């Protein structure tokens, strides 16, 4: 099977249309990035606190807001997502001295779930495995004469069921019954000393201002140095004008990608930097394959014009370009659809980047190369 049998398309004939289209896209992108809403910095670059909580029943958002207000966190935003019972709280505060999580959880217990805490009981939903083992061994509900290490297996099973089966939160002791080998006696004694808390912190991120600064510097270095490194490599391996064309295509890709990312409203965090560098790598990869062919054809084909040689090169590599883009798109698309919400913004960036990168290596990098060459020829005449 082949996409195109012996392709002879005139890719460069309409090059002015594509260049104009891209120029418009870039102007729009830059306009949106600099004068529009722009990129929305996430916690890595803005700092602050993000707390993701899971509840076993939907909490009153208005009460949540009041709690935040009473804790002097009026700037905090509340976002519901995932299943209905998950909530993300975000605030600009990041100083440890404020003890945000501790104050929050205390207030939640006091005002949202006053029935949770009973006497000296502990929360099974927050229990760590060591404590549970100690508890079971001291209480010894199975009256084991020897082989008390069975309890550490039971404790692990209980927590593993909680985290992997019940999504991190038990809401009923009956859920424990599904654990293989579970004895009612164990559940009974757990009930005596544990309660099932109605919520749990699923994820917490606190980034202080000094760390933000450091991450910004590191990111700038990573991008700067990899650009320089790539430029030097292309300069060594190809002629200068190839480098210019490749870099132009890169700037094109990254700008459009960033604008699409900002437009989608995703938050810009560290992994997105990785995704952008990845796109730079991928787009270059694509461009270099075409350029490599051009370089080869310039030596082999004699009679044709520069333009025709470049056009022939694009045709010769078009099957490969489409094929590789497709397999990579399968990978990234699958990541985008099935990879889960944590990886979603990252996959989105890659998805856009690969489409734009493929387009640019055919319709942008090569035309710029031809444009540059005609300039040189004109001048030498």
């Amino acid at each position, binding site marked *: *099977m*082949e996409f195109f049998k012996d392709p002879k398309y005139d890719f460069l004939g309409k090059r002015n249309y594509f260049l104009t289209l891209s120029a418009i896209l870039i102007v729009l992108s830059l306009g949106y990035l600099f004068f529009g809403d722009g990129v929305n910095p996430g916690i890595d670059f803005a700092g602050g606190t993000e707390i*993701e909580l899971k509840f076993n029943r939907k909490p009153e958002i208005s009460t949540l807001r009041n709690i935040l207000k009473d804790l002097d966190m009026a700037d905090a935003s509340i976002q519901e997502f995932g299943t209905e019972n998950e909530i993300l709280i975000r605030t600009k505060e990041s100083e*440890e*001295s404020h003890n945000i999580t*501790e104050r929050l959880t205390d207030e939640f217990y006091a005002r949202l779930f006053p029935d949770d805490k009973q006497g*000296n009981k*502990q929360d099974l939903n927050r229990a*760590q*495995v060591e*404590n549970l083992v100690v508890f079971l061994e001291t209480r010894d509900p199975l009256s084991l004469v020897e082989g008390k290490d069975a309890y550490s297996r039971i404790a692990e099973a209980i927590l593993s069921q909680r*985290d*992997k089966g019940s999504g*991190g939160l038990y809401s009923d002791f009956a859920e424990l019954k599904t654990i293989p080998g579970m004895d009612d006696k164990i559940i009974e004694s757990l009930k005596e000393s544990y309660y099932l808390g109605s919520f749990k*912190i*699923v*994820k*917490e*991120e*606190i980034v*202080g201002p000094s*760390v933000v600064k450091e991450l910004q510097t*590191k*990111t700038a270095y*990573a991008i700067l*140095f*990899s650009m320089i490194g*790539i430029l030097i*490599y292309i300069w060594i*391996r190809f002629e200068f004008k190839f480098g210019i064309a490749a870099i132009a295509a890169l700037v094109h890709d990254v700008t459009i990608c960033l604008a699409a990312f900002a437009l989608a409203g995703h938050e810009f965090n*560290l*992994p997105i*930097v*990785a995704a952008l*560098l*990845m796109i730079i*790598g991928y787009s*270059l*990869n694509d461009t*270099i*394959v075409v350029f*490599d062919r051009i370089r080869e054809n310039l030596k082999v084909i004699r009679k044709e014009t520069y333009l025709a040689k470049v056009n022939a090169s694009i045709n*010769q590599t078009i*099957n*490969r370009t489409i*094929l*590789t883009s497709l*397999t*990579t798109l*399968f*990978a*990234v698309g*699958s*990541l985008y659809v*099935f*990879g*889960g919400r*944590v*990886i979603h913004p990252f996959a989105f960036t*890659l998805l856009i980047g690969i489409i734009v990168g493929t387009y640019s290596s055919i319709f942008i990098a090569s035309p710029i190369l031809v444009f540059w060459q005609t300039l040189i020829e004109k001048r030498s005449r």
Partner: protein
Amino acid sequence: MSKDLKWKIPLIVFILIICIISFYPPSEKVRLGLDLMGGMHIVLRVVTDDAVQAQTDLDIERLKKLLDEKSLPFDTITSPVVSSILVTGTDTEMEGSYDDLFNEYFSEHEATFSPGTTPAWKLSFTPRSVDYFREQAIRQALETIRNRVDEFGVADPVIQRQGLSGDRILLQLPGLDDPDRVKRLISRTAFLEWKLVKGEPAPTKELLLQQFNGILPDDLEILEGALEPGQKPLYYTLNKTAAVTGRDLKNAYRGQDQFNQPNVVFALTVDGGRRFKDFTGQHVGERLAIILDNRVQSAPNIKEQIPHGAGNISGHFTIEEAEDLALVLRAGALPASIKYIEERTVGPSLGWESIQNGMLAGVIAFIAIVLFVLIYYKISGINAFVTLVFNLIIMLGILAGFKATLTLPGIAGFILTVGMSVDANVLIFERIREELRVGKTSRSALNSGFQKAFRTIVDANVTTLIAAVFLFQFGTGPVKGFAVILTIGIISSMFTALFVSRVLFSIQLALRHSKQLSI
């Protein structure tokens, strides 16, 4: 060609076996990042100023004593900044005597006299000694934190110094997801002292001060008692010098009092025990306060001499609180306070969700790519499929072999590499097709196809490699994990495409007994 195969096939098999041994079973051999297995990532800063201030406070006490001994007059001794002491109201005619004293007893300081309107001596730590105190504080903090983490029983913790001035400590604690408790435990100073109580406690500081006409004698101090639920705070007048301190502790563990209330039982070292015995012997009938982080935890009566250097600390503890207190006491006190500047916690349930989603995305991507390649390249598609599987095995092998950490972006990198690694195959296959089209035989099409594709593959991959290297250099945590996978993936896919795939083609030619390649 068949001569080549005789060593190439065993080599490939050998590499595969090594890689499989290296990562099998993956649940044990592949290290998961905190974002996948759940856990805490903490960066904290040791406030080394605290340690310098503590040293300065000690020096001020020492200086007062020395000046009194030598009958050198002074008005006030203050510490305007943490690293210096200011002495005012000195006798200007005896400058030499002051200077001698400073030189003799305060060699870590530089003493300067400034005449001015209020003549004063300034004693400043030399930069070297400030650095020394800071360094000591960081080292001791690191040690204490390491002890506490060890006591906590975390598997494979990472505890490292970081930052330009080295006053940052990075902690990675897999499997822990109760950020409040962990942070409380780590940042607790846990400085324990036993001091004699003077008089009775009172509900306000002022009441206590009245006994001394408002001016507290130099050798006494007033501290607040620990708050108990539903009770008003109490203040105690105490001897400033401690009878024994946390440094004299040998061991501490959670126990129970006669009412089944959790408490902390401690044992002192031989030396500490002897001092404790003498001290309690001298002060039978008086009250001895147990002070934790400058709060009076309890102040029981000394009923009789305590001979064995053992006792207990009671309070209204829950089991967990008593357990944690015993833990920090065993691990030792922090020399300076600490500040958290970065903290990321992922609960095990979210990590598990990420692993499952990542696996699902990976499997679906793999199936889609393989089906597509098989349809597109027919028999040679099998070749691409096999190199893809080899690629995965080699990547996992290198990952586990170098004990690199697999993170969520790392999984994404894996999937991405699967998609991109087909590229090298595609480049070769397309070249071979071209060579076949111009009428070359299978064998020579194969040779020139590989030869021509080689340079393209290297050129195209090196640029991505450059990006990956800098990403690794400057990235942190999960992003670093992505860079690692990317690097491994690029190297492994170049090897499988250029070497393994070549061998597979030769096998295809040999097996089909025909000169025709299916591509």
